[in-house]
């Protein structure tokens, strides 16, 4: 127990700067539309102590009802097309759809397989794309912060 307490007071101080500038509230609902779990690993890394998106007021939520941002990963397989649409309808406005990874853009390496419908944009309107196969956690984080920038500056992102 003592070791735990002592470790707490040695957290690095330098990252405090970034967090001051951007703070708001963004809840993300991650929809796995048939992804090969590469992007998921990176998204999980986002909430560990190093990247810690919690600092910026971003948190992952369970149901699209609570979410403002739908983070879609992976090419949309035929089975996931319906549920993806349902998730999109279940998210209250104003909502943003962000696709992570090349598979989500246009099907990526699985483009013409019989099971894949194609990119996410074929199923639901997409606002933002984070390239990379899979994009590293840092890249995803920077993109997310950029999205929050956009939201903060011009309030009128309305779908």
């Amino acid at each position, binding site marked *: 127990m003592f070791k735990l307490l002592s470790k707490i007071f040695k957290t690095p101080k330098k990252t405090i700067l970034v967090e001051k500038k951007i703070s708001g509230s963004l809840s993300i609902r991650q929809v796995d539309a048939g992804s090969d779990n590469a992007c998921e690993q990176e998204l999980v890394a986002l909430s560990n102590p190093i990247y810690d998106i919690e600092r910026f007021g971003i948190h992952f939520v369970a149901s699209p*009802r609570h979410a403002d941002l739908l983070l879609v990963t992976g090419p949309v397989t035929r089975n996931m097309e319906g549920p993806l649409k349902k998730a999109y309808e279940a998210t209250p406005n104003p909502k943003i759809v962000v696709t992570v990874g090349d598979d989500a853009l246009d099907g990526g390496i699985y483009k013409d397989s019989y099971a894949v419908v194609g990119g996410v944009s074929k199923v639901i309107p997409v606002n933002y794309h984070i390239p990379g196969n899979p994009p590293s956690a840092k890249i995803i984080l920077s993109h997310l912060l950029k999205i929050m920038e956009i939201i903060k500056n011009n309030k009128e992102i309305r779908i």
Partner: protein
Amino acid sequence: MINLIIIFLIGAFGSLILQRDDRLANIWSNSLAIIGALWGLIFSITNFLYRTNSTFIIGKNTLPILSLSLKIDQLSTFFIFIISLITLFSSIYALDYVKHYFKKYNIGALGFFFHLFIVGMLLVVTSSNGIFFLIAWEIMSVASYFLVIYDRNDLKNVQAGFTYLVMTHIGTVFIIIAFLIMYRFTGSFDFDAIKSGSLSIPQLMKNVIFILALIGFGTKAGIVPFHIWLPVAHPAAPSHVSALMSGVMIKTGIYMMIRIFLDLMQPVPVWWGLLILIIGSISSLLGVLFALTEHDIKKLLAYHSIENIGIILLGLGSSLTFTSLNMPGLALLSLTASLFHTLNHATFKSLLFMGAGAVIKETHTRNMEEYGGLIRYMPQTALFFLVGSMAISALPPFNGFFSEWLTYQALFQGIFTLDSTIKWIFIFATGSLAFTGGLALACFVKAFGATFLARSRSEEKHQIKEAPLSLRIGMGGLSLLTLILGIFSGKIITFAQKNVHLSSSVSAPNFFLSFLVIILAVILIARYLINKNQKEIVSGTWDCGTTLGPRMEITATGFARSIILIFKGILKPTIQHDIEYHDSENRYLPKSKLVTLKVQDIHHSYFYQPLKQIINIISFKIKRTQSGITNAYILYIFIALIVALFFIL
């Protein structure tokens, strides 16, 4: 008083005469009942205000023992008030409810037994002579027996009626023995003579009378070991009758307990009150536990009657203990608590039974698993049922809370002032009351949720329509009553605390006002100030994208399963899997699996089963004496003659 009974008798015989034409008989019997009920209300209220105690003696010297004497003091006026109040609402309810019996059964008979039942109850609460009381008790029991087996196409109802008849008459046997002992020592059946002569009864005999009366009236009131008939008989009766039965009839048992223990047998040892306290807490706990296991809505409500009777007994038991420890102030507090709870229970229990009746009328089944989503088709019944369930689980603005609050205060005072073992019994009672409150809340969330909310769990539920007008008037009146009784309970609480310093007091009106004001403020601010420009879009329920079928939502058994498993020591749940396979050899491809969840009734297996075996063994032994040879019988007579001669000379 006499003209009150005459009205009901006219109603009874009138509906018999008009039994040819269903509609006329129904209107006649119910309108007569309404007039009688109104008369009863006026009579009891005037009697209450002017504090008049009136006595009527009909034919004093017809028979040496039996004198048809009625004595109406404050206690019986209170019970007349309850009886006429619930009769008023249940007969309004019955106007339309009985219509669905029209072609099937004889409506005249229903009216006749309904009126006879009320006359029986009125006489029970006012009679002041032992024999006359027993006659009235029999009228009440037999009339309610015929009402229970009224829907006789369903065999289960007839069996239920039979169990009910047997159990009530076992109870009556105990009562008769108690009255005989009283007669033996005081020389008369009149309550006043018994009351004055009660000092001459030796203490041992008083205890015997106490036990007998407790068992006798306990069977009628439905305390735990003798409650077997209640969850069987009440659901079988038509709803407006089961509302009357569980709202008022079981209270006659309570009335007589008060009359005998607190009035006639006055110098009372302490252990009487403590025994009632223990029985009260056990029956309230077990009542609510078994209510949780039920998925037949009327059985669930019947078990809740047992639970509420337990709470009333808590109040009664504590008042008895306080009288025997001569603390009159606290005794008054706990007696008012139990009487106030009797009144409240009568109102919200009959409201709930009427709600259940309306639901059963539409869905033609009592099984809660086949309900669901009825709030869309029956919004007003749902609202009244919600009010009823909030009142019964003692949530503040309604009357259930304030009577339970008073019982709590009585028990707290018991804990603070008394000492050693008595204190621990009071702590046990308060603990059981607390747990009962919590479990009752869980049970009524299950009952209301499974019946009214979400989607309907059986397909052919499209033609349900809202309950007819008179049903809604009956239920609406009662729910309004529960609210009014709740808000204006301030006077009763101040009356109860007259000479007792209570650490805290609750004032209902300003709680209710602040509650309303705050809700309005919140709605105003949230809806119209902060997000004026937000829209509300309607779409399907979110279930991780899967298609949502009616079988996805929770059922009544599913809801209560976790609590049943926690209390498995008492409830002994059993799971039975029977799997059906495609082909017999190959055990790996099950076609269908049926899981049946059942709860074993401990009373049956630990109290009534051994009792039955003992009786069987004894009766087989006696059977051998019936050898069938006439000579043997004459021999028995001969021996009996000799023995008798020996004794007499």
